[in-house]
């Protein structure tokens, strides 16, 4: 059974539902209703021309909550011969309990079980993605096999938490484990410092994997696959009503574990967006309150270079802020190795530089100088426009080449929206705003947020793969802190 969106929430039903939910380990909330979502549409955003603003020509999805608490966003494209289903599982909800090692083992167990089931379905495929604060897996196949695909996912979410399977998956992950290179380790370290998480939440080391016992494996699976925190996105030629049997299966077979209570947060953005850290950094790279350089072990890269990664959180609560952050990253990317992960109200910006043994500060200084120079000079409009065209065009072309899967774009839209009602138009709004940006706006944004020595504080940095000699040289200029 599914619950349609409705006008009211009846709190007394929540209280009544708690006892059986706790006992049964699931969410019995058939009589509850979700607050309706009125997606922003053309009336609020102005006419959207998909060819101009480069957004899919989708219609607002139907939204429902399953009996097990999972939220479903169902997109319909009449006549599409393909079917896509994506399950978005947040990892940030239980960041203190859920480590990267447990998540890796749980996801591998899911892959083992799901792949075996999908092999029996023609043209069925599985893929796994990691985004800020969540992991998501998707199955793709033919629309005529939609029921079989939904059933495979429901069965897998129901039984991949089997202890034997989890132990097998742990062994396989361990066997394939290779110590991460300096860049991967520095990236994990930077995110853990910025979001105030443990390093083990971002990076699965070999000892972490070895130490996973049965209880921790099961807990990882239970926390990760808890439907009360998950969001399911479907792209099909048929409506949820037409595939009611499949929706029913997903709601009944996939159950929550015994941990936790309630039916989860009521909206997708609340479930999936990363929370801001309680104590954001107030430091700069050098400057008036210099950030200590966090040092991680790790092996230098193939050219024997260590890595320093510096970055910050950007407040991206409005479409303008998200767009400015993205276009600034694209412009910087032309000269430096700069990445941006947008996760709703906050985004993570990271800059990677290599550390030559002879002059360890040379590249860091050069990168900072370049960023400061860009922050003080307005870029020519054609350059800004070309960066926008490239970013927006590549997103749609990539989506087309990847099988025209709207669920991936919807997942990205969730990151670009502040609230659920914005998801529907988020891509179009981003495109429209990006194409109308003024170079002066970009310059002002960069001066405020992307100047590691001036501008707003919030910069931190992490180094990995340093030799003792290089560490000694670095320590002459900044405070080093073991992470």
């Amino acid at each position, binding site marked *: 059974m599914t619950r349609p969106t409705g006008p009211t929430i009846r709190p007394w039903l929540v209280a009544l539902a708690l006892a059986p939910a706790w006992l049964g380990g699931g969410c019995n909330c058939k009589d509850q209703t979700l607050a309706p979502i009125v997606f922003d549409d053309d009336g609020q955003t102005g006419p959207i021309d998909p060819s101009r603003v*480069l957004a899919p020509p989708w219609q607002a999805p139907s939204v429902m909550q399953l009996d097990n608490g999972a939220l479903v966003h169902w997109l319909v494209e009449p006549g599409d011969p393909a079917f896509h289903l994506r399950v978005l599982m947040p990892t940030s909800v239980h960041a203190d309990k859920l480590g990267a090692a447990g998540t890796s083992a749980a996801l591998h167990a899911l892959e083992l079980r799901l792949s075996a089931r999908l092999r029996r379905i023609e043209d069925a495929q599985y893929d796994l993605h990691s985004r800020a604060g969540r992991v998501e897996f998707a199955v793709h196949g033919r629309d005529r096999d939609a029921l079989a695909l939904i059933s495979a996912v429901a069965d897998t979410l129901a039984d991949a938490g089997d202890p034997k399977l989890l132990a097998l998956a742990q062994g396989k992950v361990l066997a394939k484990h290779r110590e991460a290179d300096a860049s991967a380790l520095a990236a994990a370290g930077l995110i853990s410092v910025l979001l105030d998480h443990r390093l083990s939440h971002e990076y699965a080391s070999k000892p972490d994997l070895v130490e996973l016992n049965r209880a921790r494996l099961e807990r990882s699976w239970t926390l990760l696959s808890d439907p009360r925190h998950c969001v399911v996105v479907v792209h099909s030629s048929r409506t949820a009503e037409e595939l009611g049997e499949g929706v029913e299966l997903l709601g009944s077979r996939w159950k929550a574990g015994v941990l936790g209570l309630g039916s989860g947060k009521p909206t997708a953005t609340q479930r999936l967006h990363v929370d801001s850290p309680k104590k954001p950094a107030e430091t700069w790279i050098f400057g008036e309150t210099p950030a200590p350089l966090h040092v991680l072990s790790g092996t230098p890269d193939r050219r024997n270079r260590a890595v320093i990664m510096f970055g910050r959180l950007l407040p991206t609560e409005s479409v303008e802020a998200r767009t400015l952050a993205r276009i600034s990253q694209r412009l910087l990317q032309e000269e430096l190795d700069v990445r941006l992960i947008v996760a709703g109200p906050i985004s993570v910006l990271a800059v990677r530089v290599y550390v030559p043994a002879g002059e360890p500060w040379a590249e860091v200084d050069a990168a900072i100088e370049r960023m400061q120079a860009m922050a003080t000079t307005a870029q020519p409009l054609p350059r800004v426009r070309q960066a926008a065209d490239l970013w927006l065009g*590549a997103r749609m*072309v990539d989506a*087309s080449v990847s099988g025209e899967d709207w669920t991936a774009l919807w997942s990205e839209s969730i990151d670009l929206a502040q609230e659920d009602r914005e998801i529907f138009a988020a891509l179009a709004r981003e495109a429209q705003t990006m194409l109308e940006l003024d170079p002066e706006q970009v310059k002002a944004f960069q001066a405020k947020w992307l100047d590691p020595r001036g501008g707003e504080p919030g910069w931190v940095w992490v180094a990995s793969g340093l030799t003792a000699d290089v560490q000694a040289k670095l320590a002459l200029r900044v405070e080093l802190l073991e992470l």
Partner: protein
Amino acid sequence: MLRALLTLAIASLLRPVPPSNPPPTEDALVRESGGAPVEASSDMLDVVLPCGVRVITARDASLPVAAVVLAVEVGTRDDPDKLPGLIHALAYHLQQGTRELGPGEAIATAHDVGGLAAMAVGAGQVRFESLIPASQLDAQLRVEAQRLRAPNVNRALWLKSLSYARSDDRERPLIPRELIVAAWRDAGLGHDGRAVDKALGDLLDQSVEAQLAKLFDYRAATLVVVGPEDPQKLLDRVTPYFADLPARPRKTIAPALPGGSNSIPADGPMPAPLAKQKADSLVWAVPGEPRARAWAQVLCGTINRQLAGPDEPAKARLRCTYSDDPRRPLLVVRALGFDAAEGPEPLIARRLDRIAHAEGEPELAALIENQRARIFADLEFDLRAPLELASYLAGATERRDASQPDALPTRSRAELLGLPIREEVPGLPATHPVPLDIDSAEALAEAGELARLAAVALVEAVPRLLDTRAAVLPIDPELPVPAKLHGGAPDRPAEANAAEAVQP
């Protein structure tokens, strides 16, 4: 006076030639649809512009992207004997710019807006493919409308083209080249066309220029555009880019048939001496057009699932493999457990004969209908994205009346893609993708009729593939040729051969 005469002469040269291939008018579209606007989603436009280039436009509105494919009907089989690899190298050279495009601009036009640009060089077709955001379609159309005009030619660019060509991976065909040559009766298929030897490096600029002009001509090219707009609007965007080319008739494109003809040798199947071949297979050249390609796959699926006949050896089995190519596909049927003294042909011929007369064998007809529905659904699924659709459409058969002024520009999706369809029956379209659920005597009768129609359509679509005389028998030169060649081939009425001979 002389000046006036010269002016007149130049004016007459510059005067537009009356178009032999007039562009389609909106009236024609309305006529085609019986007065109503053309249904964009299921119909496509297929026209020849006055300059001789063929344009196919189709709609795919799933995402705001557009696929543009320029396919030229020339391939590695056209390499001169002394210049193997020429077509491949020239195709690379067409990325080096023209009078209007800078070197590499064709690729950069797609890449700079987040798009993809690729090139495919096959035995009978060269394609320049791109997938771009729909908002950038005009820029890509300009590139394709300029690509073949006055290409830049100089020594440095030619050497660069050869260096790109040299770094390409060599092709490894699943079927030995000698066999492909024998099946297609075409010596030009004996090499992969990827060689870059000294002779190519020694070509003078004038020779490169002459070869480009001779081999890469818009009159032998098809431009396919698939985008979110309706086909007429897409065509309206294409037409101006070719308007300044002089009006010239389209080149006649020879149909891709073995030896250039559809005739079936009376003394086939022809043995093809080839080392290490066990003489257990027959190989057919499948006509290089979408309809034959689709039905060949239906036939292949049917052969692989067909039950043994009553008079066959107990362990007799057939294994069919289809090797796809837009212009030079092949069908290989391997026999197992056959009588060694007879060779594989009688067994294969008996099975094919049953398929050719499946109207009288309801279970076999049902199997054909099942395979037809399967291939139909496979093609619809595989061609759901614009780039795949555009590449496939580049292989679509040309209309014989394309250059006629009254030629109607619309063609149905099923026709242009060559989807395996049978005759319609009331209540069930010919494109019905799944076999019927049989839950009553009436449904059973209806299913029987559908199956019969599917069997008829198969025979009509690929008659050559049901006749073992049209195949070749690969056999090691050390082995004796089986004495009883084509002994079990079905009797064919003379008019059947005559009918095939006129098919494109």
